[in-house]
């Protein structure tokens, strides 16, 4: 089939399948928060959460990879190194099949977000090595790199380094001290998000440049300043995960000080708002732009939450509560998924006339409204838990969970609505795609 001939497209379609799987597993997992016995003897949260999280993570990684390959085809005006790309995709497929088989059979052994047996890190690491080689081979013909190529390069190189660091625990030396082990675990967990965000943000930059047809934006001084600020945060802004962990205070202070530089992003978003309104009038009915606009709104929401969480004495009240889940979900759905859906529309069904659909429109607004309720219900649950932490005498854990009940229910309902809205958008996209190619 024509669609699968381009490996970039193949990556995007595989990613879309993983995204559908992720929202399905996520919806099933959410029910357990209200009905603990739900699927307890078959899947349970022990299997469902890794299935949900890994599918979401792989959706981001594969969709970003596909977008980068497609972008490089456009930038270099040729489709080079298909064999390397095929091996790259094949290694991912091998890893994904093995990982989900392990989950289904209850075989774990990894850590949070990477729960599969560590042997499957080998095909993922190799796949990433192929990505790195292919990327450098492809970009060698581009003499002057726009900011998004720098972002992709940084994301690809650092992902590989941090992914390896993420597996230091396999060596007993790194498990000698529980605290050191935990610091390295959350150092890697924090930085790796920054690394794949580089891939996703670079894609957003590329798409915006193409939509607005302003070729010089990729060389703008501000764009490079923001890139270096993101890079700086990727490298040193993970310490806020560890404020409560008794370790070297330098780690806490570096995390605290570096995360405060994120206020620059915050101010820049507000400053750009007026310009964005003018752009929105021109491109509003074009789905790639609409999802990018949605990403900008969610970025503002999540950055506000992140900035508060980065201040240690505020973090004390938010840490260990559902505020963290709200932040993680807000970032994954509101930021990464919005950009990657924009990319899918841009690369797979680029014509504006394909986007004039009431079905897609309902799905789009369903996502935004459901996500807002979903995040607010999580934040309210976080607020309830935070009060419980400091109450005297402290009620039982089960009693605190009982207090959350109405908001847990709202969380499940909005999660269901989010699931259906995403399903609507995915179906609309797939229908248009196959109609175009049949």
């Amino acid at each position, binding site marked *: 089939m024509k669609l699968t001939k381009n490996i970039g497209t193949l990556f995007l379609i595989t990613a879309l399948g993983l995204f559908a799987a992720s929202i399905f597993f996520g919806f099933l997992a959410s029910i357990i928060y209200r009905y603990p016995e739900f699927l307890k003897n078959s899947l349970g949260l022990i299997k469902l959460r*890794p299935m949900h999280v890994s599918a979401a993570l792989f959706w981001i990684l594969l969709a970003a990879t596909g977008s980068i390959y497609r972008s490089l085809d456009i930038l270099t005006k040729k489709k080079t190194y298909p064999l390397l790309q095929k091996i790259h995709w094949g290694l991912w497929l091998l890893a994904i099949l093995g990982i989900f088989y392990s989950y289904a059979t209850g075989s774990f052994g990894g850590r949070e977000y990477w729960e599969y047996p560590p042997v499957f890190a080998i095909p993922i690491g190799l796949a990433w090595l192929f990505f790195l080689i292919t990327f450098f081979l492809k970009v060698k013909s581009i003499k002057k790199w726009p900011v998004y190529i720098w972002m992709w390069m940084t994301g690809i190189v650092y992902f590989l380094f941090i992914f390896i660091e993420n597996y230091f625990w396999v060596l007993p030396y790194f498990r000698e001290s529980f*605290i050191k082990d935990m*610091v390295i675990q959350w150092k890697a967990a924090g930085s790796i998000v920054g690394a794949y965000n580089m891939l996703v943000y670079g894609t957003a930059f590329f798409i915006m440049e193409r939509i607005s047809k302003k070729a010089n934006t990729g060389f703008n001084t501000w764009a*490079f300043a923001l890139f270096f600020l993101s890079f700086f945060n990727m490298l040193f802004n993970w310490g806020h995960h560890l404020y409560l962990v008794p370790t070297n205070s330098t780690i806490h202070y570096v995390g605290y000080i570096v995360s405060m530089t994120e206020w620059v992003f915050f101010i820049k978003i507000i400053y750009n708002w007026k310009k964005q309104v003018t752009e929105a009038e021109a491109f509003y009915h074009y789905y790639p732009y609409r999802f990018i606009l949605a990403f900008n709104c969610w970025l503002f929401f999540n950055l506000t939450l992140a900035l508060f969480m980065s201040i*240690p004495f505020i973090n004390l009240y938010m840490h*260990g*509560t559902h505020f963290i889940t709200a932040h993680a979900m807000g970032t994954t759905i509101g930021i990464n998924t919005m950009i990657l859906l924009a990319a899918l529309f841009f690369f797979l069904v680029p014509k504006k006339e394909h986007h004039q659909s009431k079905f897609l429109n309902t799905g789009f607004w369903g996502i935004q409204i459901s996500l807002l309720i979903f995040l607010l219900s999580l934040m309210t649950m976080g607020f309830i838990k935070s009060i419980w932490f*400091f109450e005297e005498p402290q009620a039982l854990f089960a009693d605190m969970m009982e207090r959350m009940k109405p908001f847990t229910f709202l969380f499940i309902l909005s999660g269901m609505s989010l699931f259906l809205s995403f399903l609507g958008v995915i179906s609309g996209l797939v229908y248009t795609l196959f109609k175009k190619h049949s």
Partner: protein
Amino acid sequence: MGKPILILFLLLSLAFLVFSSSIYKDDTVYEKKPVAYDAALQKEGRLIWQKNNCHVCHQLYGLGGFLGPDLTNVADKGYYYIDAFLKVGINSMPIFNLTEEESLHLFEFLKATNASGSANPKDYTILMDGMIVQK
């Protein structure tokens, strides 16, 4: 613009490598509580924690899932308290068919987490600069 960008990129990367290696080499003992545990067995216990996906529902220092309570200091309640939950299960927590050896290793790991300090937010003091430290 290419050269200054590359230099800045390399300088930041170098700073990251120096900072990272100082963390890898740090052998300071940060323990806050006088709890005895077997250092070799706790390493095995960490793997039991991972193989059974305990973090899906539970946290250590507030990091993990939120369906169950934080277990950083659960070892204070003793081996039999933990073993009872593992053998019987509760709500969404299934029965874990751990061998006695595995349960003991897991308990050693939980003793190590307990020795490191307290995960209770009430045990922290706020400093003038906004930082928090364990009392």
